[in-house]
């Protein structure tokens, strides 16, 4: 079997476009899923039964479904329910955001719960409202515990974006698979894809390790 690596070089612009979309999917998903995760966590911890139960249902639903299924679900079911067609990119973004928001919610909840009750009480004893205590005292401290977990989620998300290729979002995996099916250069394209994911993912993983070390809670 002869290998023809020239196909990789010839496809460089298409691959670069795909990589760009992969990064965009990751970044935009996180930009949505961080505030959504905070809102879901605060709802879950609120005294209102309705808020806390609906948050719990949402989180447990999306956290326990395979992401691939959510992607298909968003693709086939969402347009029927909402009556609008979304672009493949938007559909992929919705699926990823639902999944990651559910994960982030649990991350934030654990972070908030890790702060001693006495901290909230000290804030309330000063005359702060529960909301002020949460914003000024609890959440700023919870960040330190949350950040390393968010960083790991980020790295997983970066790789998981490849799942939206099944609904023809033109991110890196989809582009590479397209070229493969047009040129039958399976080994070359899979290798190229692996190298690109690795080159982009490795520095992120290293960054996560660094964040973990830096924010490790010493008590």
């Amino acid at each position: 079997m002869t290998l023809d690596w020239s196909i990789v070089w010839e496809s460089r612009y298409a691959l670069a476009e795909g990589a760009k979309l992969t990064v965009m999917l990751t970044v935009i998903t996180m930009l949505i899923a961080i505030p959504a995760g905070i809102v879901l966590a605060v709802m879950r911890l609120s005294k209102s039964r309705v808020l806390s139960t609906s948050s719990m249902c949402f989180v447990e639903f999306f956290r326990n479904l395979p992401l691939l299924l959510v992607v298909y679900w968003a693709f086939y079911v969402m347009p029927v329910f909402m009556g609008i067609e979304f672009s493949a990119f938007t559909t992929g973004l919705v699926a990823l955001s639902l999944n990651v928001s559910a994960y982030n919610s649990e991350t934030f909840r654990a972070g908030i719960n890790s702060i001693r009750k006495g901290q909230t009480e000290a804030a309330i004893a000063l005359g702060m409202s529960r909301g002020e205590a949460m914003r000024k005292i609890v959440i700023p401290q919870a960040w330190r515990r949350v950040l390393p977990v968010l960083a790991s989620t980020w790295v997983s998300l970066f790789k998981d974006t490849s799942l939206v290729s099944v609904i023809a979002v033109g991110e890196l995996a989809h582009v590479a698979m397209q070229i493969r099916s047009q040129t039958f250069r399976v080994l070359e394209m899979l290798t190229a894809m692996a190298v690109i994911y690795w080159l982009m993912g490795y520095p992120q993983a290293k960054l996560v390790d660094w964040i973990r070390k830096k924010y490790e809670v010493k008590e």
Partner: protein
Amino acid sequence: MSADDPMLTSHQRRGADLPPVVVYEEVRKLFGDFVALDGVSIQVNQGEVMCLIGPSGSGKSTLLRCTNALEVVSSGRVIFEGKPLPSNETEARKIRQRMGMVFQNFELFPHKSTLDNVAIGPITVLGMKEGDARARAMKLLDKVGLTDKAGSFPSSLSGGQQQRVAIARALAMEPDVMLFDEPTSALDPETIGEVLNVMKQLAEEGMTMIVVTHEMTFARRVANWVVVFDHGKVVEQGPPEQIFDAPTCDRTRDFLGHLGWNG
């Protein structure tokens, strides 16, 4: 003003001629079926230092927490400056602003500098300008002898220093009454004195203080009124000379004997 102030006859309780600051009327507090406070009726006068003593689990902390509405009483009333504590949270918040609380474990905010720990109350709760609040905080750090630690974070301070910052943080709200819940119980013996000195100084300035403590020497010397708790009830109350030198109640004697107090 001290307990042996010549202006006071031995029977006149401090602040007796002024309206009381806090009055507890038949206060009961239940946690489920468990009775933590079982009909407590006492009063705290203006300028008084009242020490609450008694075995662990007897309801002292619960009474303090009912005072600033961190806990809601199950029955009875807590009357602060003539008005019963409000049941609505927004109103309760206004009351808490006028009461300072100091916790056994300090509960300083670890993500803020010492200065900002003291300034955060006035900034967040009173809406004071940051500069003004920090100036006030600096004065209070001076009062507790910690201006040199203004920029440090709580984790770099000793326990005694942290507790002094916590006192300054409570004072920054300019409260009418200070609640202390075993402020020296978590401290190394060598730093207890510095905290007690700050509290003594506050007492001398006329601050109304309710102090839960196991420091019997402090209670004996600084308090003008001592209340002994057992099983959610007040078993005896009176001036320290009575409680420590001539307790009228067996359980007071037992408790003091247990602590090794022998007059």
